[in-house]
């Protein structure tokens, strides 16, 4: 089919499905959509319809709709980075950008990573469910699927070397009656067909060992054992600390604002803090990776942010050990997501989520009562039915709810490829769930692309290991005693709920990726993550931040930017 005909077909399908008449053009497998749609959903549907055609490789969707929010580049702050030069600059400090720093630092390359936030992993990585998915529910044949099953298998080694909590808790699919039992061989076949390691079919005794206390009517189940959970905040820091050991430079609070291309090759990246010279630019900019491609003159895909919300229950409520799935839950999957689930965290907290909703704003992290109710009513009955003897889920036990957006392309697949237009530009884009599971494999693929092109020498001094800093709450009494003797600050407990000492906070503040906000301290140490949610320790953490980083307390923030906690002093007495 020639381009014109293809465009007409797409246009016709869009009109039929949405009633919207948008203009379509196709070139080199890229469909470009322009015009006007009546709603966000219609514009997104139009993009998905275009992407549904096999001949369409990617979709650039410029269809306008009421409420559309353009991506605005931030203003320049300084020129401090001008003059710096690296072999590779990675744009984006999420788990993907970080995993790439690790793979590239195996080579003799000067590497820098720029991150627009004041801390790493602040968008998708911080707002994910910290789950290492099996490939079970990913569509076979996609790049996403390949990265998912390869990445999943790599986590034992990565988490081990980086000293991060990681457990393969497994996904347990249970049959609630004899009719459902008939589907279990299908689950086994599905897992095998998706390259997941052969799952285990369990009888009741087997189920009791893995997930005690299931309802008596549950007699059989399938354990997809390679599902994992990971300490995702620790992982972010671990990747970064390991990269630092291997010589990678990090520039936080730094946004890319332009890409300089000369003779078809990358020359430099312009940022809010100056222009950095580089020959290789890795676009790992997550929710903004289409914008980075555009800045480099290589616009061939669009992202549409899809928000996911999750509710988390109190630590005292731990009804499941596995990711528990019933057939009734599987039936509720939506078109472009895996449907969320009943997922424990590595600390044992129960999560319900995430939801999936197309939104206007890529930065939308607002939670809604609608999502809370949707999640609770979708998963609580299943959980209660599967584990009837355990305390039933209660809305009052929900301790928090969080939201974040997925960086979805219209193809709903990952993009890991060298630019077809600009030499030295590598796109690692459209990475969304199960991006965390896939991260090590994605990074490896990105590395292969760069190595194939540039043939860098190996870094003989590459250090694969990183050791985590000590956490008071994880030590036994003797270790605590020794630690306090070596540094008395470890004997001063600042966060009473999570037993976090001043020593840990000071260490975090002076760590390689210095955390200068209350939330950054929380992500690194758990101070403020407990029952009182920082009510007690927040003023003390502010004191320590101010003292250790030598800034006025009024300039200390909750979470970077202008999120100042204090708004001035109380009235002063005139002297």
């Amino acid at each position, binding site marked *: 089919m020639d381009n014109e005909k293809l465009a007409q077909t797409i246009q016709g399908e869009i009109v039929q499905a949405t009633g919207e008449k948008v203009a379509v053009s196709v070139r080199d497998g890229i469909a470009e959509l322009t015009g006007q749609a009546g709603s966000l959903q219609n514009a997104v549907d139009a993009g998905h319809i275009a992407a549904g055609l096999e001949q369409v490789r990617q979709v650039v969707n410029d269809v306008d709709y009421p409420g559309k929010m353009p991506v605005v580049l931030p203003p320049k702050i300084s020129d401090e980075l001008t003059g710096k030069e690296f072999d590779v600059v990675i744009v984006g400090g999420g788990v993907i950008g970080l995993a790439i720093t690790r793979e590239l630092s195996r080579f003799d390359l000067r590497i820098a990573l720029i991150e627009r936030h004041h801390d790493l992993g602040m968008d998708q990585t911080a707002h994910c469910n910290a789950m290492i998915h099996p490939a079970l529910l990913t569509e076979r044949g996609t790049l996403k699927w390949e990265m998912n099953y390869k990445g999943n298998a790599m986590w034992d080694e990565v988490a081990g070397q980086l000293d991060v909590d990681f457990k393969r808790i497994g996904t347990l699919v249970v049959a609630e009656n004899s009719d459902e039992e008939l589907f279990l061989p299908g689950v086994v076949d599905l897992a095998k067909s998706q390259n997941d390691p052969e799952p285990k079919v369990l009888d009741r005794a087997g189920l009791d060992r893995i997930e005690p206390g299931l309802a008596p009517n549950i007699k059989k189940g399938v354990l997809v054992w390679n599902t994992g959970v990971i300490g995702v905040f620790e992982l972010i820091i671990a990747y970064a600390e390991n990269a630092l050991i291997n010589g990678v430079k990090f520039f936080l609070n730094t946004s890319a604002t332009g890409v300089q291309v000369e003779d078809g090759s990358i020359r430099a990246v312009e940022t809010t803090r100056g222009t950095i010279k580089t020959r290789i630019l890795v676009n790992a900019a997550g929710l903004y990776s289409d914008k980075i491609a555009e800045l480099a003159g290589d616009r061939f895909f669009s992202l549409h942010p899809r928000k996911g919300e999750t509710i988390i229950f109190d630590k005292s409520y731990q009804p499941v050990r596995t990711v528990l799935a019933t057939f009734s839950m599987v039936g509720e999957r939506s078109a472009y997501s895996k449907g969320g689930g009943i997922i424990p965290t590595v600390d044992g907290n129960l999560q319900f989520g995430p939801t999936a909703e197309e939104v206007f704003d890529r*930065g939308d*992290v*607002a*939670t*809604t*009562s609608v999502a*809370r109710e949707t999640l609770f009513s979708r998963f609580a009955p299943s959980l209660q039915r599967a584990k009837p003897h355990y305390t039933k889920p209660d*809305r*009052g036990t*929900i*301790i*928090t*709810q969080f939201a974040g957006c997925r960086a979805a392309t219209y193809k709903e697949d990952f993009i890991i490829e060298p630019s077809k237009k600009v030499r030295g530009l590598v796109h690692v884009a459209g990475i969304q769930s199960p991006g965390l599971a896939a991260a090590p494999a994605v990074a490896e693929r990105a590395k292969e692309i760069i190595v194939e092109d540039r043939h860098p020498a190996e870094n003989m001094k590459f250090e694969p290991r990183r050791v985590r800093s000590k956490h008071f709450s994880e030590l036994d*009494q003797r270790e*605590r*005693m020794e630690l*306090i*003797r070596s540094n*008395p*600050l*470890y*004997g*001063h*407990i600042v966060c*009473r*709920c999570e*037993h976090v000492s001043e020593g840990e906070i000071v260490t975090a503040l002076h760590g390689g990726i210095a955390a200068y906000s209350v939330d950054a301290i929380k992500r690194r140490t758990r101070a403020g993550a407990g*029952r*009182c*949610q*920082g*009510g*007690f320790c*927040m*003023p003390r953490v502010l004191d320590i931040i101010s003292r250790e980083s030598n800034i006025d*307390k*009024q300039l200390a*923030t*909750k*979470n970077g*930017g*202008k*999120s*100042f*906690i*204090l*708004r*001035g*002093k*109380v*009235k002063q007495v005139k002297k």
Partner: protein
Amino acid sequence: MVRQAHHERDYILNLGMRMQADVTVIGSGPAGLVAAIEASRSGAKDVILLEREEELGGILKQCIHNGFGLEQFKKDYTGPEYAERLIDEIRKTEVRCFLNTMVTGVSANRTVTAVNSEDGVFQVEAKSVVLAMGCRERARGSINIPGTRPAGVLTAGTAQRLVNIEGFLPGKEVVILGSGDIGLIMARRLTLEGARVRGVYEIMNYPGGLKRNIVQCLNDFNIPLYLSHTVTEIQGRERVEGVVVSQVDEKMQPIQGSEKFLQCDTLLLSVGLIPENELSKGAGVELSRATNGPVTAETMETSVPGIFSCGNVSTVFDLVDYVAQTGMSAGRNAARFVAGDWKENGGSVEVLAGENVRVVFPQRYCFRDELTLYVRPAKPIEKPVTLSIAPIEMNIKRLYARPNEMIRLKVDRKKLEKVTEPIQVSIKER
């Protein structure tokens, strides 16, 4: 400054990090201070007081308003003055105070594990333990307000610390959710400091705080109180830019269409206090669902022999006088326990909350001490009521019953001597 037990330190570090005591008191707020003083005065020899902060006094230090010690000292002190008075008294005793010392565990055999910078990790084996850890504020997570997570959302108590101890303003345009006493007091305090308090929004159809605080902290400063209202959304990316408030129906569900946007830079939460009982749980102390505190006898003894509790760790009291009274009882009885003055007697009977009663404290009567009951009504009754105690046929007439006013009453010990069935407290309209 309070004397620290320096001579003990070498012993701790070199000889196995263990020490012995008659009574260990955890927490030096009003309950713990009074309990330690009273235990010492009642004859306990080694009394150790463990405090996690750098000074004694607990939350009193930041309560710079008046109204403390009215009953106990017949004075109208501010919080710090009241604390100072107790600290002066504790100085006259042999109580040894450990500051900057965090208790990390209490066991049922009354061994307390603690940590500080100077001594490291150490244990105190005591004949009796008094739990006086107080309470914490309910935070945003436990009430699940949807929206963004900007700076500027904090509990009233945290704001109180920032303003009164550290001298900083947490915000200039403030909405307060919940009409608990700390929220009311902070409404006044922030107004005096030049902030604009746009209103106090309370989800219930009656206020949570004391009447005197409604009058003195809100009415006197023209701060509106909206009952049956709640905050349904927080807006603002980095700092709070505003909140959406909604009216709620009788099931406390937001009424569609009643939403109103209020511009503000701060949302203060005063939505309840929760007794802080993580240590109690570790010791195996039975907790009450009604109070979230230990199930306690009139002696302040918990379900674990020799472990006592007092003050807001037991149940959230309205007045420091009540807290002090329970502290006094716990200290005195801890000393009695140590002295072996704890003869087995006629067992115990339960004390139950009956009709229209949300909380009754204590929950057990053991025939060992005077019984002082603290009763929190379940709902407001703005009519004459009778508070009756079965089975002893004690009936007390009152003009009204309100959840924000705890009722305290002493029960004649003689009347209780022959009681064999549970004591039940109920409130009825007359």
